[in-house]
C-alpha cells in the first residue's frame, strides 16, 4: 500500500519558482498496479525522484505500508529507500558486474552473508528466467534481458513497493510484452504494490488496475481503469482507447458511441436498425476488454426517416454514451 498526500515540489530557477508537482494525491492498494501517464515535462520524473527520496518534496507526505517516508532523517534515508525497488528505463546495470553480481549489489550493501547472497541471487534470477545468464556481463545481454536483471536487482532487498520508470520505453514490442507479463506475475506472486510511470498507453491497458493522468504537475484524472475508459468526459479514456482514423463523408448524421460492460456485448446496432428502420454503417470502431470489462467505441453513420433526437434518446436509454459528431 502506498499513499501519497498533497505532495508538492518546487524548484528555484534563478528568480522564478517552478512548481514541478502541485498537490499530488494518490493511493495504490497492495497487490495492484497503478499507472501514471503524462507528457514529458508533466512532472513524472520529479514524482519518481520524490518517491525515492533522491529529491526531498517541498511539502506533503509519502507513506508506504503505514510508514511515513518523507519525514525520515537524512541518516535513515538509506534504510527507507530499501523499501522501494526501482526499475529504470535503461536498466542502469553496472557494466563491470555480471548479471548475478548486479543482483547481489543491494545485498552486499548491508553485509549479507555470502551463502545467503548466493541463494537469494539464484532464486531471483530464476524468478525472472535468467538462470543460465548468471555469469554474463550486461554488454552480452539483450535489452529485455538487461531489464529482467534490473527487475531482479530491484527485488533483492525485498521491497514493498516496485517503482517502474518507463520500464519498456526502450524495448521492442515483443520484449515489452514479456516484461509487462513478468511485472504482472511478480505483483501477484510477491504481493507487491507497483507504480508504473509511462507515456505508453498500451502499457496502462496491458497491466494497470488504476491510472492517473499527470499534467503540469497536477493529477487531473484518476481512477480504476474501467471507470476511466468508461468516463466520456475525460480525455484519458479517449487516449487509452482511441478510435481508428477514418475519413468522414458528412452527408449523413454521424454518432460516436461509447459502450461499456454489458452494453458492449448487447446487439445494440441490429436493435437500432429494427426499431427505427435505419441503415447503420460503422465508419470506425474498436472493441476491447480492459481490466476485466468490455469496452467499445464506435463511429456510425445513421440513415433513417425518424429524427436523430429519438435515436440518441433510445441509445442513451440503453446505456450507451452518445455524442453527435460535428
Amino acid at each position, binding site marked *: 500500500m502506498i499513499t501519497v498526500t498533497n505532495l508538492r515540489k518546487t524548484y528555484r530557477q534563478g528568480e522564478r519558482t517552478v512548481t514541478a508537482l502541485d498537490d499530488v494525491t494518490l493511493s495504490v492498494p497492495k497487490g495492484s498496479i497503478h499507472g501514471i501517464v503524462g507528457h514529458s515535462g508533466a512532472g513524472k520524473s520529479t514524482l519518481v525522484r520524490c518517491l*525515492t527520496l*533522491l529529491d526531498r518534496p517541498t511539502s506533503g507526505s509519502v507513506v508506504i505500508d503505514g510508514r511515513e517516508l518523507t519525514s525520515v532523517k537524512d541518516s535513515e534515508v*538509506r*534504510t527507507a*529507500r*530499501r523499501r*522501494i525497488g*526501482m526499475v*529504470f528505463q*535503461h536498466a*542502469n*546495470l*553496472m*557494466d*563491470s*558486474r555480471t548479471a548475478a553480481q548486479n543482483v547481489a*549489489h*543491494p545485498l*552486499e*550493501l*548491508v553485509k549479507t552473508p555470502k551463502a545467503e547472497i548466493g541463494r537469494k541471487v539464484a532464486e531471483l534470477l530464476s524468478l525472472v528466467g535468467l538462470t543460465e545468464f548468471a555469469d554474463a*556481463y*550486461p*554488454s*552480452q545481454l539483450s535489452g529485455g534481458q538487461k531489464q529482467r536483471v534490473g527487475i531482479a*536487482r530491484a527485488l*533483492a*532487498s525485498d521491497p514493498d513497493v516496485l517503482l517502474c520508470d518507463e520500464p519498456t520505453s526502450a524495448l521492442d514490442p515483443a520484449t515489452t510484452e514479456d516484461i509487462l507479463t513478468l511485472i504482472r506475475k511478480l505483483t501477484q506472486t510477491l504481493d507487491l504494490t507497483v507504480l508504473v510511470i509511462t507515456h505508453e498507453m498500451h502499457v496502462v491497458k496491458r497491466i494497470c488496475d488504476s491510472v492517473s493522468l499527470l499534467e503540469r504537475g497536477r493529477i487531473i484524472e484518476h481512477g480504476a481503469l474501467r471507470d476511466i475508459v468508461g468516463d466520456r468526459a475525460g480525455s484519458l479514456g479517449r487516449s487509452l482507447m482511441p478510435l481508428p482514423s477514418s475519413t468522414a463523408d458528412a452527408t449523413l448524421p454521424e454518432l460516436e458511441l461509447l459502450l461499456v460492460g454489458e452494453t458492449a456485448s448487447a446487439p445494440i446496432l441490429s436493435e437500432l436498425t429494427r426499431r427505427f428502420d435505419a441503415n447503420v454503417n460503422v465508419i470506425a470502431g474498436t472493441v476491447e476488454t480492459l481490466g476485466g470489462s468490455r469496452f467499445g467505441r464506435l463511429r456510425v453513420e445513421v440513415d433513417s426517416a425518424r429524427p436523430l433526437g429519438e435515436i440518441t434518446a433510445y441509445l442513451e436509454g440503453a446505456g450507451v454514451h452518445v455524442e453527435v459528431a460535428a
Partner: protein
Amino acid sequence: MNLLDNLFQNPGITEALPEEFLATLQMVGISGFFTLLIGLPLGIFLHTSSPGGLRAMPVTNRIVSDVVVNITRSIPFAILMVSLIPLARFLTGSSIGPVAASVSLSIGAIPFFARLVETSLRDVSSGKIDAALVMGSTRLQVITKVMIAEALPSLIAAFTTTLVTLVGYSAMAGIIGGGGLGRLAYNYGLQRFDTAVMVVIIVIIVAIVQIIQLIGDRLAQRVDHRTAATAGARQSRSDRRQAMANNVVGV
C-alpha cells in the same frame, strides 16, 4: 661488431648505465606511488564536490580546482622542480638524488592525474549513481562500488598516461640533480658528444615507455566489460585457456 665492442667498453654504459637505470625506475616508482595515493582521492574529491555532484561543495571545489590544481598545472615543470628544492630537502633531508627528485615529480604529477581521474569518473552515467543510491548505498559505497568500479578501465589508462609522463619528467629531473637516465644522456650525449650512449639511453627510455603502455593497456582491457567485444574477448580467452588445460590433462 666494432660498434658493439665499443659500446661494451664504454664506461658510460658498463658502469653508469645500470645505476642510472635503477635511479630512473626508483624516481618513477616512488612518484608513481604517491601520485596514485594522493591523486586518486583528489580526483574523486574534484568530481564528487562539483556542483550537482554526490556531495556538492561548490566553494571548496572552486578553491581546490581553480587555485590548487590549475595553478600547479600551469607552472612549467622545470620551474616547479627548482622551486620545490627546499621542500624536497625538508622532506627527504637532501636536495639531490632520485628520492629528493620524487618530491617534485609527485607534486607535478598529482594534479595532472587528479584531472584525468575527474574526467574518467564524470563518464560514469548518473543513472548508475541513482540506481546505487536508490538501493541504499552510502556515498562511500557509491564511490567504491560504482564510480571506481565502473571507471576502472579508464582509470587504469589514466594512470598509464601519468606514468609515461613521469618517465619524461624524470629525465628532466635528472638534469637538476635527480640522477637517472636523463642525467646520463645529458652528461654523455650532450656534454661529451658521445652519441652512442645517447642512442642507447633513448632506446632504453622508449622501451620503458612501451612496457608501461603495454601493461597498462592489457590491464585496462582485462577489466573492461563495457562492450560485448571486450567482455566476449575475455571469455573466449579464458575458454581457450581452459581448452589448453584440458589438452594437457588429456596428454
